[in-house]
């Protein structure tokens, strides 16, 4: 393991938090990942299916190089990485200091179940008498007060919902491992002294507090109290004011002198309130007026206790902090609730719908009406619920709901009743991401999902049919009523609760919409250095953009830590040298955990042990009562100290838990952890709960035997490692390329930047300002200056890549510069940032008249002051020119915002200017919606058109208006004519990524010419070929700020590799046994990662161990086991099959 050169704090364990943590961990930093919920995954732990596959795929985020450092299982089960320290149920209480050197205080929520001891048997939930709505299933089902927060986590331990728990203690009695401590240790240490002369008062208070687990003493007088304090230490005193002898105030004074830390609450009758108030000046914390409610008193004590506990929270240091707090869904039951949410049971939110159709959902995935359990045959989605709503002060678009609704409709079609009809009611279908438009069309054509433009305004119930009646306008001003079995509200995103408090605590700002505010052109930065933002915490984002933003934030965090000199070194010692046992016969020692007494009755571990001993490879078998306890683990260490064996098999519960611990054990007893394994023998007892003990025993034995067979074959081979060139090549000198180059160079690695044109900047050369009013030129100048001065960046203008070969770590790329000899660069990674251009068009008379221009020309004319807005009367604009229909069937994402920007600019210059915009769907996603509203407020008229009835444009003759646009206005149900002085066309973006360049690096190109990501959501800037990344417009159409984010993310992905001296293979990696290989190259054909190649000179198949992910497709394709996967050798697999059939 490499030295950790610093540490970062990631706050929030949703997708962006996981991504940011992994990015930093893979780069070698230590990460503390803090999540306030008791599980990771954020909202995605509740969503099983994501566009575009409509399944999952989250695991594709896991590390690809040095895989062994991280978990190798479904991310829904949890996350493990040796550099990531995960803290669940924890909040950040304070952040002090400055970038590079923050001091952070964490506060853990009180937990009643010890996760290290809980074995997830569920006996507690069985006896728990309290049932409440289950938030995991969006409240559609019920759970107990002691429950599993998510069903699929591993290890999955129970937690207690403190608010719901009645403290009855049933679970404590039944817990087989004693993991539940309802009255936690902490409270027993928290001594409370009750001082009152009245016996009944002090006795009942004592009783109430003891019930809550506190340690309580009572004193009948001031003198007694002072005595008691001398004998024992108390943290808190409840003190009566009016007492015979020494009164409360006197006791208080004395106490404050001797025990200034003591929290004193005065108890007073009405008559002495003033005294109590006076007492607070003396040092009392608070007062309670008699007679008081026991609950008030108890909660006051708990408050004091928890505040004190929190102040004792853990303090740690970190160089940077990334906030990934996500968002929350709008709750439609608040406010006017026009859709009858929670009034009609069949009106659901999107999240509820997804839970309903989930296999882990309340009905096991059956799509039925919640009102009467009948199958759903008609279902409607209502868009923009809690979004684009000025009344709710939500003048933004949540950006994700359109695609989510399409996905959900497809899922309903796939999983629901065969005749199911799905309708989506929308205002603008915002398919603004890569491939979204085609996805929508697939939904329409292949899935027969109906898209109806119209804002639903009323939902009522038809008592006779039990159906919901949905009323909506149709475009010709009439209203339609349609009946549905179920209505799903596409609820918008809103800032996560508590953003304001976090903002105050961490000193970052909020934007006008309440989300965390990021800096101009720096989407991950806040105004406070070292504090960064990722995911939808700073505004609604889909998964791909969240993942990109997480990369961007981790890059910034890494830069901050790097700039501060690396911070606290946490250098691990040398790796222990284990003896080479490859020539010894396998001798396996087996440890079996009895799992307390939780296994079903009649299971005899000794019988299993005897069965195993029959195998000659088994050296010894011993049983441990409970491995998960400290004593149990010590016993294992003790029992594995002796010699005589060379492999260790442990039969216990969840194997995932043990990865880290086995490593420690190995170091202690000097047995290579690679020769140790844990076999799960606990789940047969769950899965076969109804079976006879003998059957379960057999099932457990079979598992152990298969583990045995696996372990017997394992020979730890020396890891292969190959040195790498720690240098980057960035192709394209636009904003994305420049940003990526700077990001990498700032980390100390040399960068070659190749630009085909004579100057850097790309599209920044003509953009002047953003819609927010930020100056693009200033920004550009800044970046360019920094880049040109940077000692580690070499810029090659007028240059292009001629050829490239090699693989991650070692690429050799030849570039050609005009008027100079070509040269070959040796680099470890490549970033393609070749950008794109505004598309050219001949549609709508473009090119026939000066009055018809594109957006880019307009921007240039405005900046060069060639247009006098005051001298013209009317401007028309047409959106989606040649876009969102074949062959260029994608949304270019930036044009609608550009249109709004131009409108607002021109309207500012000339408020009387007539502006008419012909559009299909205004893609003013996110906060751009506000500018859409502003443009309307400025008086622009927006007229929708469809592909079937596009506007017609006529260029004027002499005397006529310069350009005339005819179109159909659906609301007026009439043809309209706009006589305009200027027509501006939004032609969209075309990529500039040549096929030959992509081929040279083994990168893929999609149907539209953009870079093909390894995975559109989970690996949005990677190529399938490791070491090749893309950013900016080469990836997909995006704004300047979005390009910066993607460039930083791509740089971060590259730094992961450059930060290593050499790339090392993982434990499960493919190898070729050359003496058996016939060079048929079928393995090369089936390798999805391009990790294999044939070396014709050597007549060998070469496996790039860093690129190989160990999927084993090569091995199963190879007819004679010449290609093998370490850990899955055919001989072992066959033996294992044999073993389990027995």
């Amino acid at each position, binding site marked *: 393991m490499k030295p950790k050169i610093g540490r970062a704090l990631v706050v929030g364990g949703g997708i962006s938090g996981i991504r940011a943590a992994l990015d930093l961990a893979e780069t070698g930093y230590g990460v503390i990942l803090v999540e306030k919920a008791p599980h990771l995954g954020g909202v995605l732990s509740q969503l099983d299916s994501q566009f575009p596959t409509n*399944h999952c795929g989250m695991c594709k985020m896991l590390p690809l190089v040095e895989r062994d450092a991280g978990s190798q299982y*479904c991310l829904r089960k949890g996350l493990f990485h040796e550099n990531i320290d995960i803290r669940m149920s924890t909040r950040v209480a304070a952040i002090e200091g400055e970038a590079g050197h923050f001091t952070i205080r964490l506060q853990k929520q009180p937990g009643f179940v010890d996760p290290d001891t809980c074995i997830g048997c569920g006996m507690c939930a069985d006896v728990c008498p309290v049932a409440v709505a289950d938030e995991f299933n969006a409240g559609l089902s019920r759970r107990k007060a002691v429950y599993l927060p998510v069903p*699929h986590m591993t290890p999955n331990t129970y937690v207690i919902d403190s608010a719901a728990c009645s403290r009855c203690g049933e679970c404590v009695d039944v817990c087989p491992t004693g993991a539940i401590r309802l009255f936690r240790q902490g409270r027993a240490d928290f001594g409370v002294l009750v001082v009152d002369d009245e016996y009944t008062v002090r006795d009942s208070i004592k009783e109430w507090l003891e019930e809550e687990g506190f340690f309580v003493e009572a004193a009948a007088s001031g003198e007694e109290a002072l005595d008691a304090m001398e004998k024992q230490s108390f943290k808190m005193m409840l003190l009566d004011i009016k007492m015979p002898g020494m009164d409360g105030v006197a006791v208080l004074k004395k106490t404050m002198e001797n025990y200034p830390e003591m929290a004193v609450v005065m108890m007073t009758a009405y008559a002495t309130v003033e005294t109590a108030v006076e007492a607070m000046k003396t040092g009392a914390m608070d007062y309670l007026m008699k007679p008081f409610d026991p609950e008030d008193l108890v909660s006051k004590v708990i408050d004091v206790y928890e505040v004190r506990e929190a102040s004792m929270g853990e303090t740690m240091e970190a160089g940077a902090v990334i906030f990934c707090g996500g968002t929350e869904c709008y709750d439609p039951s608040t406010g006017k609730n026009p859709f009858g949410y929670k009034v009609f049971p069949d009106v659901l939110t999107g999240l509820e719908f997804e839970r309903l159709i989930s*296999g882990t959902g309340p009905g096991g995935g059956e799509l039925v009406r919640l009102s009467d359990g009948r199958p759903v045959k008609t279902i409607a989605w209502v868009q923009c619920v809690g979004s684009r709503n000025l009344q709710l002060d939500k003048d933004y678009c949540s950006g994700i709901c359109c695609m989510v609704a399409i996905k959900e409709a497809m899922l309903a079609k796939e999983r629901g009743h065969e005749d199911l009809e799905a309708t989506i009611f929308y205002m603008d279908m915002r398919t603004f991401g890569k491939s979204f438009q085609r996805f929508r069309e697939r939904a329409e054509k292949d899935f027969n999902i109906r898209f109806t433009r119209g804002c639903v305004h009323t939902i009522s119930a038809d008592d006779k049919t039990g159906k919901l009646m949905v009323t909506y306008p149709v475009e010709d001003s009439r209203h339609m009523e349609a009946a549905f079995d179920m209505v799903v509200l596409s609820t918008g995103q809103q800032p996560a609760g508590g953003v304001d408090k976090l903002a105050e605590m961490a000193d970052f700002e909020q934007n006008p919409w309440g989300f965390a505010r990021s800096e101009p052109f720096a989407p991950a930065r806040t105004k406070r250095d070292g504090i960064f933002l990722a995911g939808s915490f700073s505004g609604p984002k889909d998964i791909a953009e969240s993942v990109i933003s997480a990369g961007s934030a981790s890059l910034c965090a890494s830069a901050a830590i790097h700039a501060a000199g690396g911070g606290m070194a946490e250098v691990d010692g040398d790796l222990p040298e284990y003896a080479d046992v490859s020539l010894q016969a396998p001798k396996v020692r087996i440890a079996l955990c009895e799992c307390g007494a939780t296994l079903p009755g009649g299971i005899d571990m000794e019988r299993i042990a005897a069965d195993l001993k029959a195998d000659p490879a088994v050296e010894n078998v011993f049983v441990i009562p409970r491995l998960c306890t400290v004593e149990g683990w010590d016993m294992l260490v003790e029992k594995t100290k002796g010699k005589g064996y060379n492999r260790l098999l442990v039969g216990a519960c969840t194997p995932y838990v043990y990865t880290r611990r086995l490593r420690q054990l190995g170091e202690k007893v000097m047995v290579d952890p690679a020769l140790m394994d844990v076999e799960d023998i606990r789940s047969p007892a*769950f899965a076969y709960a109804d079976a006879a003990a003998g059957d379960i025993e057999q099932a457990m034995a079979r598992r152990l035997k298969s583990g045995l067979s696996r372990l017997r074959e394992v020979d730890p081979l020396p890891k292969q490692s190959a040195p790498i060139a720690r240098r980057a090549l960035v192709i394209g000198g636009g904003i994305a390329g420049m940003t990526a180059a700077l990001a990498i160079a700032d980390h100390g690695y040399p960068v070659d930047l190749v630009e085909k044109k004579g100057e850097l900047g790309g599209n920044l050369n003509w953009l002047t300002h953003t819609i927010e009013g930020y100056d693009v030129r200033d920004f550009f100048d800044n970046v360019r200056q920094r880049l040109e001065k940077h000692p580690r960046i070499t810029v090659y203008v007028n240059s292009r890549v001629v050829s490239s070969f090699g693989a991650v770590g070692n690429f050799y790329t030849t570039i050609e510069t005009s008027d100079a000899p070509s040269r070959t660069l040796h680099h470890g990674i490549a970033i393609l940032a070749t950008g794109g251009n505004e598309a050219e068009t001949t549609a709508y008379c473009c090119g026939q008249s000066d009055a018809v221009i594109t957006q880019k020309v307009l921007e240039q004319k405005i900046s060069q002051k060639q247009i006098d807005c005051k001298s013209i009367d009317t401007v028309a604009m047409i959106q989606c020119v040649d876009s969102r229909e074949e062959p260029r069937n994608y949304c270019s994402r930036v044009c609608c915002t550009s249109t709004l920007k131009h409108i607002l600019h021109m309207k500012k210059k000339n408020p009387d200017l007539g502006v008419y915009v012909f559009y299909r769907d205004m893609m003013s996603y996110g906060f751009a919606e506000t500018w859409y509203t502003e443009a309307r407020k400025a008086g622009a008229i927006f007229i929708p058109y469809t592909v079937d009835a596009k506007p017609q444009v006529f260029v004027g003759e002499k005397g006529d208006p310069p350009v005339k646009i005819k179109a159909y206005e659906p609301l007026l149900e009439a043809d309209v004519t706009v006589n305009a002085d200027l027509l501006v066309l939004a032609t969209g973006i075309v990529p500039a990524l040549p096929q030959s360049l992509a081929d040279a690096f083994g990168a893929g190109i999609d149907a539209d010419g953009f870079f093909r990501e390894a995975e559109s959501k989970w690996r949005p800037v990677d190529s399938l070929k490791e070491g090749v990344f893309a950013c900016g417009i080469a990836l997909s159409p995006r704004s300047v700020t979005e390009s910066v984010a993607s460039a930083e993310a791509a740089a971060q992905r590259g730094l992961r590799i450059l930060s290593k001296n050499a790339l090392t293979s993982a434990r499960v990696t493919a190898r070729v046994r050359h003496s058996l290989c016939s060079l048929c190259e079928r393995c090369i054909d*089936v390798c*999805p990662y391009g990790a294999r190649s044939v070396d014709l000179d050597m007549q060998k198949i070469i496996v790039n161990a860093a690129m190989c992910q160990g999927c084993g497709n090569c091995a199963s394709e190879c007819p004679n086991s010449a290609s093998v996967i370490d850990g899955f050798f055919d001989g072992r697999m066959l033996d294992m099959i*044999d073993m*389990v059939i027995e």
Partner: protein
Amino acid sequence: MDDFEPTIIAFVCNWCTYTAADLAGTSRLSYPTNVRLIRVMCTGMVDPKYIIKAFLEGADAVLVSGCHPGDCHYINGNYKARRRIKLLKSILPRYGFDERRLKLTWIGASDGIQFARTIREMVAEIKEIGPNEAKHAAVV
């Protein structure tokens, strides 16, 4: 044979179906003990040899189960697995290994219920078909 309890060998992919099986376990969905799980990294790793071996050793059915199309952790291993199953389904029935004894399913990580149901249904179906003849015959 009333007391016939089929033996089912299930090759499950590490990412999806293994997780689903785990989930079925932790959700305490009970399913028959007949299934013997063998975890593989990817269904694309399941060599036809393994399946043939299982049948010859007397497995009454073999299940290969992995990620849904498009979801394979390794991009496309499940598609390749599908071809291999297609191949075996064209060969094995010739020699009396009923086509229904070999199944390929896509069971995602959160489909614990489907996993349990698939096993239950498979056990019921195989009970109808009866035992694999190779179980007792000296066929190796």
